[in-house]
């Protein structure tokens, strides 16, 4: 059976009903373990004091904020090329989750910045590109909301997502050129396996990242189901109305 068969809404709903309980339990467990371990079970950093504990929220949220956009990009491409409705709706469902992740990353970063850099906000490239990402999310959601016809909305938002991605990357370079920053370099370079934080901080952090990832997947599954139901309700209503 091809994976595309799950692009059928009904199939998708059955699948999602089956995997969702597992996802929710796992994600909640991971998030809870990671956060509790991180909050209660790790020592203070010699330089940053207790503020390191913010990392367990900040980094997973930042990670998911970017990955959510990436997932939307892939889903948009699938919609544009293969026209599977579930894929378009999944992109729509992911956007608000992405925004919330972005906002969490921004807010925790700002709170962290106050003691560390003495300012809530600095126009550092990493931070700035995040702000721009936030704007792209806003535009994407606003466009979905503004268009009446769901398929047209899916088409247009997909193209916006594509074009937006290109410009987001471009902005990233532009911003780097414009201001060299004070933000941390990446501490979890997956490719090299090297890392800059101690193991004590690292393990709960990884658990949190997994937890946030699973939470994102669970939310997207659930929200996609909601969108499918709303589409179905609208379709039934419209047909009944048109026949009358």
């Amino acid at each position, binding site marked *: 059976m091809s994976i595309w068969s799950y692009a059928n809404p009904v199939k998708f709903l059955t699948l999602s009903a089956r995997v969702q309980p597992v996802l929710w339990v796992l994600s909640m467990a991971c998030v809870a373990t990671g956060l509790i371990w991180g909050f209660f079970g790790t020592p203070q950093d010699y330089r940053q004091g207790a503020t390191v504990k913010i990392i367990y929220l900040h980094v997973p949220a930042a990670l998911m904020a970017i990955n959510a956009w990436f997932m939307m990009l892939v889903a948009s491409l699938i919609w544009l090329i293969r026209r599977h409705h579930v894929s378009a709706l999944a992109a729509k469902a992911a956007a608000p989750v992405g925004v919330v992740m972005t906002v969490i990353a921004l807010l925790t970063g*700002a709170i962290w910045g106050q003691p560390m850099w003495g300012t809530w*906000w*600095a126009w550092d490239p990493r931070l700035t590109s995040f*702000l721009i990402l936030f*704007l792209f999310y806003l535009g994407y959601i*606003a466009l979905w*909301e503004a268009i009446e016809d769901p398929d047209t909305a899916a088409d247009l938002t997909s193209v916006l997502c594509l074009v937006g991605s290109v410009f987001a990357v471009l902005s990233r370079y532009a911003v780097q050129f414009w201001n060299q920053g004070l933000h941390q370099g990446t501490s979890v370079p997956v490719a090299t396996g090297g890392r800059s934080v101690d193991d004590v901080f690292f393990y709960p952090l990884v658990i949190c990242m997994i937890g946030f990832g699973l939470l994102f997947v669970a939310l997207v599954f659930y929200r996609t189901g909601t969108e499918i139901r709303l589409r179905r309700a609208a379709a039934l209503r419209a047909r009944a109305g048109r026949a009358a």
Partner: protein
Amino acid sequence: MRALLIRDLTLALRAGGGFGLGLAFFLIVTVLVPFSVGPQAELLQLIAPGVLWLGALLACLLSLDRLLALDFEDGTLDLLLTAPLPLEGALSVKALAHWLTTGLPLVLAAPVLGVLLNLAPAGYLWLVVSLAVGTPALSVIGCFGAALTVGIKRGGLLLSLLVLPLYVPTLIFGAEVARRGAGGQEVATPLLMLAGITCAVIALMPFASAAVLRMGLR
């Protein structure tokens, strides 16, 4: 009247209605300022109150053209004129709806955006106060501009042109309050002036708007 207010708010909240877009524009202008003048924190702090006021003013301005033009295009305005409503009242209600959907969110969002521009801590309170007192004047004056340009195809930019000079006094006093507040100076005088302008404008402007609208639709 209540019906009109409710309808305007509903329309604003519906898809494509434009609620929150003024806010988004405000956000974006504020974000673009550092890109254009450079990222130095002290410089940004210096210009923050002014930029925020200017941004709020522009966001307000941009949403003006949907205040009357939409109703004109689909013929609603003609029908409203023949309805048993005093036109002055109808226009006041429309200005109120505009403020509720545009001005109020701007007031609430301003402190958050202040963070981005490194606003001095003392400035937050006065920024919010000055915007809360000043933005109603922007909506009412804007309503006059909208009434002036209503018959004109795509009068949007012309509207900006006509309204901007009318906004100057409000902007001067409002930005002055915010700037003095951020600098820790006394703010009573400009704040009083600002409040005076707002009250006068709310009391008198709807009559001018209604007169202008009646002439324009003739």
